[in-house]
């Protein structure tokens, strides 16, 4: 097998995650438009006390949590707010891959006391700040239960308008339930073509038992049937110059 055949075999080059923030890269797309509804819906979910610390979680891995979290952060920053996206998935971190950063000097390094707050928060080209996960640690749930993590979120509340927490899946690890105690609300992501009903039910039951407020459900990877509903294609082409 010669190299030219090989390059055809592997289309991606290992950096393919860089185009996942559709709100920034393709602002006119239907996909981006559907993310723009989320801040409005969240605002009206609690009118008196608008949620500012938002947890993004799902039942299983691969349901597009990180992509959704990054796009929501991009939508808030588009509206002129100060936003920070925190990678709370300390086991399989992905936020740095989406934002084109390197996973050093992250949350775990800060919580075990290796780095200070200034080096922790990193700017990105997408106008929102990012805290990446950092080096892997043996017991992530212990670190997430610490007072220092709570203090960090309190400090971020002072410095930023919105804090988006990208969390690990609920049915696989307990981390999301621990993080749920300190967030204002949570968005539950369901991959429409992958997740089973039973898994979703079980995950939502776990969240209700732990008294974690759920603002709503975000459907990812939707089937064509749902996408065509309401003829959004026509809507886009009628109202856009491009």
């Amino acid at each position, binding site marked *: 097998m010669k190299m030219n055949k090989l*390059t055809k075999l592997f289309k991606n*080059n*290992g950096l393919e995650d860089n185009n996942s923030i559709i709100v920034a890269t393709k602002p006119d797309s239907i996909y981006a438009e559907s993310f723009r509804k989320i801040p409005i819906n969240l605002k009206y979910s609690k009118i008196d006390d608008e949620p500012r610390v938002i947890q993004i979680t799902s039942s299983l891995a691969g349901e597009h949590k990180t992509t959704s979290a990054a796009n929501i952060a991009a939508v808030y920053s588009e509206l002129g707010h100060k936003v920070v996206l925190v990678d709370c998935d300390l086991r399989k971190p992905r936020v740095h891959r989406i934002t*084109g950063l*390197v996973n*050093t000097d992250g949350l775990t390094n800060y919580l075990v006391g290796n780095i200070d707050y200034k080096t922790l928060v990193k700017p990105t080209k997408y106008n929102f700040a990012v805290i990446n996960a950092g080096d892997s640690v043996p017991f992530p749930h212990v670190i997430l239960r610490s007072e220092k993590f709570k203090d960090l979120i309190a400090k971020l509340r002072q410095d930023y308008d919105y804090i988006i927490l990208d969390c690990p899946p609920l049915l696989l690890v307990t981390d999301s339930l621990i993080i749920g105690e300190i967030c204002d609300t949570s968005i539950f992501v369901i991959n429409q073509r992958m997740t089973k009903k039973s898994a979703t039910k079980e995950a939502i039951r776990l969240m209700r038992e732990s008294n974690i407020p759920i603002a709503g459900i975000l459907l990812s990877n939707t089937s064509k049937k749902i996408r065509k509903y309401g003829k959004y294609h026509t809507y886009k082409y009628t109202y856009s110059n491009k």
Partner: protein
Amino acid sequence: MVDIHTHILPFVDDGSDSFNDSCRMIEEELAMGVENIILTPHVLRVGMPRLTKQEYLDFFISFKTEIQKNYKVNLYLGQEIAYHPQIIKYLQDDQLLTINNTPYLLLELPFFEPIKDYDELFYSCAVLNYKIIIAHIERYHYLTYSDVLSFKKYPILYQINSNSLTGESGRKLKKLSFRMIKDGLVDLVGSDVHACRTNDLALAYQTVALNFSDDEAKRLFIHNPRKLFDIK
């Protein structure tokens, strides 16, 4: 010819323990027609001395001036960087040396067990604008051939050792290196010479020229290193 992987720089790793040994190795290289040598001492390897980047540079400059008094040879500095869990942090802090100040770094994977996340390693290096050359790719017994093929989806290069090509390291490695060259996976060949090992780069060149083609041998031993590492 260019030898891109040598342990000739004395006193910094297990390559050479005396200046005389290093001189003998350089004489051997010159006798084979190698006039450009890249010195790649081990770093981050367990049991090797931990020196700073500046110390390596100082050692290199004094060694080079000493050698060039007696021999007509061009020396360049690089490092053979062993995989370390903190390697990305070291690269980010600019603590490691690339080959002749180009973006290319010679990376040695662990010999006994695979690392956890290759994807993350290759991604991080690409973000930091480093280009990886995996040293002696044929020698990691845990890597299957499909692993070697699949890594090529990342922008990385492969180097194989000359003693694998000549059959010095056994028939299995010879067969494997031939298969890799046949599939167009190999980009560079180096001798990986230590004072205790024989240098058979010239024999490896002849082996490639004989079994494949002259052009292929020239590409692997002369043109690729000159192009990649900015050697005139």
